[in-house]
C-alpha cells in the first residue's frame, strides 16, 4: 500500500518538474530571442546571458524528465489495460 503511494508521489513529482522545466525552457528561450522585453518584464533579473546559460544547461534534465514522464505514463496505461 505504502509502495503504491510512493510510486504515485514519484509520478506526480516527475510530471510537475517536467511542467516547470518546460515553462523555464520557454521563458529562457524568450529571454534569448526577445531579450529587451524579457529583461524589462523581469526588472533586469533575467538577462540575455543568464537566459542563455540556463537554457543551454536544461537539455539533459529535460530529456531525463521527459523520458521518465513517458515511461511512467506507458506503465500506467499498461496496468490499466491488463485484465484483473
Amino acid at each position, binding site marked *: 500500500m505504502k509502495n503504491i503511494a510512493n510510486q504515485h508521489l514519484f509520478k506526480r513529482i516527475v510530471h510537475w518538474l517536467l511542467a516547470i522545466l518546460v515553462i523555464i525552457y520557454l521563458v529562457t528561450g524568450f529571454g*534569448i*530571442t526577445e531579450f*529587451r522585453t524579457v529583461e524589462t518584464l523581469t526588472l533586469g533579473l533575467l538577462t540575455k*546571458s543568464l537566459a*542563455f546559460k540556463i537554457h543551454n544547461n536544461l537539455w539533459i534534465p529535460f530529456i531525463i524528465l521527459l523520458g521518465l514522464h513517458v515511461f511512467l505514463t506507458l506503465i500506467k496505461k499498461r496496468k490499466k489495460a491488463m485484465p484483473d
Partner: protein
Amino acid sequence: MDETEELEPVEIREYGGTDLSSVDDFRENSIRGPQHIDDIASYRLKITGLVDNPKNHTYEDVIDNYQHYKKVVTLDCVEGWSVTILWEGVLVRELMAESSPLPNAKVVIFHAYDGYTTSLPLDYIMNNDIIMAYKMNEVTLPAERGFPFQLVAESRWGYKWIKWITEIELSDDVNYRGYWETRGYSNTGDLDKGFFEE
C-alpha cells in the same frame, strides 16, 4: 525617350555560384532596436584614440575616397541562426592607416550610434581583410541592418559585427570589454570557440 531612369536596386540572391541569404533573414537583436540615421549629411565617422592624425569622415568621404571590396561572408549569431551575404565596403585597416596608429595601439574599439561597443585586436584588423560594409547583396544597408556602416567581423560571433558604427577608437587597453563582453560573452568572440567566457 532615350533617357534611362534608374530604379531602386533589388538585392541579389546568388553570387559566384553561392546562394545568398536575404536582407530580411536577419533576426532583430540589437540592444535598443533599429537606429535610423536620417540626416546622413551630419553623420560623422570618427577615428580617435592612439592615432597621430584623428579623423572625422563624412559618409561620402568613406564611400568616395577608399577602395571598395566585395566579399561573401557568413554571419553566425550566438542565437543559433546564420546568414550568408555578399558584403561590400572598405577595409578597416585602410581607413585607419590614414590616421597613423601609434605603436602602442593594441585594440580597436568600435562605437555605435545606439551606445553599443565591441572591440577586436588591432592585429586581427591588420592581418585580415576586415571590411566595414555599406552594402549587402548589392543594396545599401537598410537602417535595420546598420546603415551607414556595419563591421564584417568574419570568423567572429555575430555580436562582434557592430552596426551603426560612429567611431573607431584605437586603444592600448587589452582588457577593454564591449557591451556583451561585460555581460559574460567571450572577448575574443572566436567562432571556433564557445561564446561564453571560459
